[in-house]
């Protein structure tokens, strides 16, 4: 049992405690809720500004500034942009790339972490560190070599190149997180399964996987959202308009010297929707408690 310091209660206070503590807890929880809600509202203020300006006409925005209430509900800019840039196609490209990367990176992370965290492979500290290198390298130093390699194998200007690159980059984080978590995996479970004659693969599927599902869900969400917002590598690797992703498409609202702020905001708000949806769908697995009997 890990170190749990218990606090000896003063026996004389005990009979009174339930009543008093219930009242205290009752009030306290509302105060706590209020503080957290206020914090959340503060976090959302910038989004409020985005909403305020996303549907303003350009002349309204320019004449009255970014703080004013819109004088009308203007959707022309967004509609034009939507059609010019073929936004639905960009959204699809983003979903395809981010979704594939999320699933593939989680799989690879799990495999790596199994070997490192549970299998305790020799030199695993260095291996984890090596994998983390993927996160440490600034992206601009990756660009030229990856460009040349992609050109060689004919993957330049394809979504597959972006998928492969981000699977590797995201799985570095996944490997580190999962290996750390699996490093503290209860040995008793593993030994019991091994004694029952289970092989490594079976243990992975039947014992390890069910227990790290919340962590996997977190990774899935993170990988999807991080890949969704990636701008630089897709900008370099995806040339044809029909393979480009949403962040790259948003950049077309920003020229050399001029930019279209209201439409950029509207476009960004819309591009938030798939990412947020993904978050809401998969975070339900985060709120389910662990299956009882994990340690037993």
């Amino acid at each position: 049992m890990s170190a749990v310091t218990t606090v000896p209660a003063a026996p004389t206070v005990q009979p009174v405690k339930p009543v008093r503590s219930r009242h205290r807890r009752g009030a306290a929880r509302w105060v706590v809720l209020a503080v957290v809600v206020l914090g959340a509202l503060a976090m959302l203020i910038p989004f409020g500004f985005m909403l305020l300006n996303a549907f303003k006409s350009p002349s309204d925005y320019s004449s009255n500034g970014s703080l004013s209430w819109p004088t009308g509900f203007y959707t022309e800019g967004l509609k034009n942009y939507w059609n010019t840039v073929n936004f639905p196609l960009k959204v699809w490209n983003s979903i395809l790339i981010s979704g594939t990367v999320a699933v593939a990176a989680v799989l690879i992370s799990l495999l790596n972490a199994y070997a490192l965290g549970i299998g305790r492979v020799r030199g695993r500290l260095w291996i984890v560190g090596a994998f983390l290198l993927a996160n440490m390298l600034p992206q601009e130093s990756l660009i030229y070599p990856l460009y040349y390699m992609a050109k060689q194998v004919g993957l330049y200007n394809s979504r597959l190149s972006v998928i492969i690159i981000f699977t590797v980059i995201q799985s570095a984080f996944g490997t580190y997180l999962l290996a750390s978590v699996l490093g503290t995996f209860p040995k008793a479970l593993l030994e019991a399964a091994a004694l029952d004659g289970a092989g490594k693969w079976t243990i992975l599927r039947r014992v390890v996987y069910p227990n790290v599902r919340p962590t996997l869900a977190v990774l899935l969400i993170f990988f999807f959202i991080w890949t969704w917002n990636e701008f630089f590598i897709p900008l370099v690797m995806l040339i044809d308009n029909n393979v480009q992703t949403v962040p790259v498409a948003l950049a077309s609202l920003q020229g050399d010297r001029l930019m279209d702020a209201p439409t950029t905001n509207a476009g960004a708000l819309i591009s938030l929707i798939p990412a947020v949806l993904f978050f809401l769908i998969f975070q339900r697995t985060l709120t389910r408690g662990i299956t009882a009997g994990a340690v037993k």
Partner: protein
Amino acid sequence: MRVYRKLIATTAVLAAVTLGLAACGSDSGGDETSQASGAKTLKLWHYEGPDSAMAIAWTKAIEIFKTEHPGVTVNFEQKQFEQIQKNAGMILNSDQGPDVMEYNKGNATAGLLSSQGLLTDLTADATKRGWDKKLSPSLQTTAKYDERGVMGSGKWYGVPNYGEYVTVYYNKDLFDKYKLAVPTTLDEFTKVMDTFVAKGVTPLGMSGAEYPAGQLYYELALSKADRSFVDNYQLYKAPVDFKADPLKYAADTFSAWVKKGYVSKESSSLKAEDMGVKFISGKVPMIVSGSWWYGRFQADAKFNWDSFLFPGNKLNAGSSGNIWVVPKNSKAKDLAADFIDITMRPEIQNLIGNNGGVPVAADAAQITDPKNKKLIEDFNTVNSGDGLAFYPDWPVPGYYDVLVSGFQGLINGSKTPEQVLAAISKPYQEGVDEIKNS
């Protein structure tokens, strides 16, 4: 249940991936199975917004091209400026590039690519089709690059359709309110600004975080400069002394203007967009910036406004607009040249002129809107007087950030003019030395 949901989700994703990969295979590499002559497709890129004068004119040019070349498909894609700016070298070095595209003029962009052999030499077409007659010599500076990639001489690598220059936009209503006339000399200009300051209005909008500060500095320098200065500064003909006029004058005057309140100290963190919005919302009566704002003001400004040349200057920041280039790997070079030729025709040029742009070869009589006409006439005045002096950040790659950093210090008062000049002269000298020694 959870397992099933995950399974279904995973299967769905895998199925989508398979379909996606199949699609990937077919769309990566737009293969053109055509030769240079007898080519059947023209892949054309530009990055001007769809409402801009250039885009309107070029859309018409594409239409005309299609009628004159039946059987040729025009594959037009609107790109992002940032993508082309950063990756042009990489794109043109592959087989995924276009047949003809808009590209930035200047040594660091077109010059660099041409010196690496990534652009087609257009000299033959230029003489044959008469582009060299339609463009004034000073506009041709940004069309020609030598073997080192320095503009001004050498072979033709690009063709501009439009021009740009820095001018002063002013709010007529505010001028009328304070009974001010358009200034024609620098002294009158400062008097106008004094009047505004006395009334509690900041006369000049500014943006310290982007290009406008550097352009004001340059305009001030040009008020005391001659053509040989521009040649030295931009074309490295002779060394430039940052401790002497005109650059010293420019920094000192800029600083004086900040102290007198002509330029707000709080503009050091503003972006160009913020400055433009301030003008459109009527908060500042004047801004010194480029012809590229015209279309935006035309659409969004709800008051009377117009422009005048920087008072007293014969030289002004400005150049040709972006240029059409034909990548070396283009598979439709003749078609590309045909398209470029169409864009130089009067009807296309007039379209640029009538939609808020500044054409290089238009018939002034055909321009209908009076403000637009003035914009173009002012440009022609500067151009015909060989007054286009390019931009202050052009000489050395990365100099843009140096200027921004230097002049932010001047605006918020953390640097003296001497310090700013010292800070911006070192990178300039180093950069020029590198270019000369390479």
